[in-house]
């Protein structure tokens, strides 16, 4: 066995009371594609931050080629030869590709352009060096990130959930690139919670649970279920299969809606049509940045369509053009937004005050004055009924974990007894236990006749939940797919756009 490129011994990182990592040991061999597997909140990101020097460990040591190193900053890590591709890219939208690269790699502009092109052909990472980053698709941006790392000639490349932003076809392309890279001797740390991916590409896997290493395996030797058990510490719970429910009335009717954006970095919606009936879950798939936030804002009323806008936008049978979120809630609409802190909840306010945000019409306001005890009562019920782990109704929303806050927000919206529920990325960043609880709730609601619209980047989730799917690509919505008669690759084709797929 060759000497490991990177070794961690007993690395511990503590935030307040939480042991994000405790006593982690890790060895990465040269040329290995090494997975760090764990569910949300298991401590994967913290571990990467420690290796990349964003944070420093409270205890333990990091060795680089057998020598102890203190990685005090990303700059120091880069000097060692560590490159990182972030899940939320660290690119600058207003700069061009080559400008982005030049911030990290020395050399004249002309030199860099030719090196970008060279690398592009060598590793299958073609991108226009003079394009502005804001004009690139998410997949192209990822290529830029990888290129930028590769130009610095790294020995170790860290990729944080790299496939979460890619349509299935592009995942294969990325894997091809990674294999070619590994063949040149570069080690790759591949962070993921997607088991099949890890089995198909990784040579080693270190499994994290609650900040501790629970396994060091060769992923090909195990099936997905066994890996999952190691990852979450128990068997994967199965969702109760959705029973066929009689379809109810048409509760959300969007037809031929267009919305040109006045934001130069935004996406325009073009001729969007969708409908959701009672007792039905419609899933909207697509790679983020294809108009999801714009579509969500139009449906929630955060962006109001002019009263005289073309097309149709109605809820529960009433026209909601020119009507804001509060009025839509009165019709029986509820919405769980993508951004939990800062949109779905105000981090600095108590849970009670956060209840008032959308549930004020539940008797919390009389003659313009807030009825504090009613809000508290509502909040306590919400906490109790939704298994929200918190110190109580007066806890600040910002002090809750992602999963618990999401349970609170969904609970609050469900207490509005909606006829039509809309969720944007309902389980993003939520631990598996909470995610499954949320999905279960949604299916129960559907069975009870509620109309549900879900936007999600996670295809698996949509396949599990929805009766029908549509795909958002470049501001346009595809036709309806019936989930039970659809394969992921059909959706994948729509995700990169019909025209591109035809090529």
């Amino acid at each position, binding site marked *: 066995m060759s000497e490991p490129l990177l070794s961690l011994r007993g690395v511990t990182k503590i935030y307040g009371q939480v042991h994000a990592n405790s006593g982690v040991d890790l060895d990465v061999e040269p040329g290995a594609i090494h997975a760090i597997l764990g569910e949300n909140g298991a401590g994967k990101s913290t571990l990467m931050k420690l290796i990349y020097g964003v944070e420093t460990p409270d205890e333990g040591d990091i060795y680089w080629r057998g020598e102890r190193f203190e990685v005090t900053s990303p700059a120091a890590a880069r000097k060692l030869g560590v490159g990182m591709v972030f899940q939320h890219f*660290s690119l*600058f*939208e207003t700069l061009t590709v080559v400008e982005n690269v*030049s*911030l*990290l790699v020395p050399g004249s502009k002309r030199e860099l352009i030719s090196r970008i092109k060279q690398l592009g052909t060598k590793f299958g990472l073609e991108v226009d060096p003079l394009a502005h980053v804001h004009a690139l698709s998410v997949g192209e941006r990822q290529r830029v990130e990888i290129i*930028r790392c590769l130009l610095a000639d790294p020995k170790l490349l860290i990729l944080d959930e790299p496939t979460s932003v890619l349509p299935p076809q592009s995942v294969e392309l990325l894997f091809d690139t990674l294999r070619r890279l590994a063949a040149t001797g570069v080690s790759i740390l591949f962070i993921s919670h997607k088991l099949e991916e890890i089995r198909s590409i990784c040579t080693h896997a270190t499994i994290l649970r609650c900040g501790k290493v629970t396994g060091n395996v060769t992923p090909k030797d195990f099936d997905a279920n066994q890996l999952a058990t190691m990852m979450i510490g128990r068997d994967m719970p199965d969702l109760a299969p959705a029973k066929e429910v009689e379809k109810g009335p048409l509760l959300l009717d969007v037809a031929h809606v267009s919305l040109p954006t006045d*934001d*130069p970095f935004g996406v325009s919606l073009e001729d969007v049509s969708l409908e959701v009936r009672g007792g039905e879950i419609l899933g909207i798939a697509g790679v983020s940045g294809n108009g999801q936030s714009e579509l969500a804002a139009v449906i929630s009323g955060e962006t109001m369509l002019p009263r005289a806008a073309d097309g149709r936008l109605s809820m529960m049978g009433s026209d909601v053009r020119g009507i804001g979120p509060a009025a839509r809630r009165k019709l029986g609409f509820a919405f769980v937004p993508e951004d939990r802190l800062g949109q779905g909840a105000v981090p600095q306010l108590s849970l009670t005050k956060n209840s008032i945000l959308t549930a004020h019409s539940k008797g919390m306001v009389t003659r313009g004055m807030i009825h504090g005890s009613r809000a508290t009562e509502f909040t306590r019920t919400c906490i109790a009924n939704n298994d929200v782990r918190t110190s109580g109704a007066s806890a600040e929303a910002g002090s809750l974990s992602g999963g618990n806050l999401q349970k609170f927000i969904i609970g609050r919206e469900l207490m509005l007894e909606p006829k039509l529920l809309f969720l944007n990325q309902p389980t993003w960043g939520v631990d598996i236990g909470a995610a499954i609880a949320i999905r279960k709730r949604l299916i129960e609601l559907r069975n009870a006749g509620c109309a549900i619209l879900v936007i999600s980047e996670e295809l698996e989730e949509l396949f599990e939940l929805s009766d029908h799917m549509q795909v958002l690509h470049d501001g346009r919505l595809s036709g309806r797919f019936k989930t039970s008669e659809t394969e992921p690759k059909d959706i994948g084709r729509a995700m990169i756009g019909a025209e591109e797929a035809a090529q």
Partner: protein
Amino acid sequence: MIAIEFILAGMLAAATPFLLAALGELVAERSGVLNLGVEGMMALGAAIAFITVYTGGGHVPAFIAGGICAMILSLFFAFATIGLHANQVATGLAVGILGLGLSAYFGKPFESFTVTGIDKIAILGLAELPLVGGLFNQDIVVWLSLLFTVALWYVLTRTKLGLLLKAVGENPHAAESIGYPVRLIRVGAVAFGGFMAGVAGAYASTVYTPLWADGMIAGRGWIAVALVVFGTWMVGRVFLGALLFGAVSLGGIAVQTVGLAIPSQLLTSLPYIVTIVVLGIISSNKRLLRLNGIASLGEPFEK
């Protein structure tokens, strides 16, 4: 005609305090920090520079002293907002009030005193031209300011430092994650802005109107802040904006020489009213602001 000749001759000098302060603020804002204390920093720079010249220190040391004192003030701002994430708007106001207070405090014994300005340098051949000749007869600071404007334009648009500043202003988290010391860069940008505000004040009190009077900056620092918005964070446009305000501030005097019966208060108000109007025109173009604006402006940078 006389009025036009008068405006053309004086426009550049009148624009210089606006220009220098605005360019300094432009650099600070490009890094993502909104420092509203420009007025106070200018006033402090003006007072210190005036005292330096009056007590026989000469103009060059006066500009340096004024710049450095204003820079020290801006470092208080940087410590509070960048080091401790204090609210940038409120802290800017606090520093502004402090600067104005300090300028009056130190300047008190020198109230209404005057000093001699500096000589003008004419460009031979051009300065004798009819009508526009005055444009080519300016003091050295004006000429240097023009050079400085070009140099700053070059640095911000053509060098890696400029790129870095833009990157930090757009997305400090990304800049940090690829290894740049975001806080240090911002402190540097704020300090630069402070120094330039001090120099702008020094020019106002020792060259443009070489006398000390409490409150002599009279909102020029605030107009400089507005100029950065007018210029949509671009050097060239800020320069044009400064020229416009130089001309407007002379307009009042010019109109009086022509003999129009307009209340002098309205003429004094003209720069402020023009600011309000232009601010409305530029800001209503949201697309322009979004395209050129600084994404992280005013936001505290926290991990």
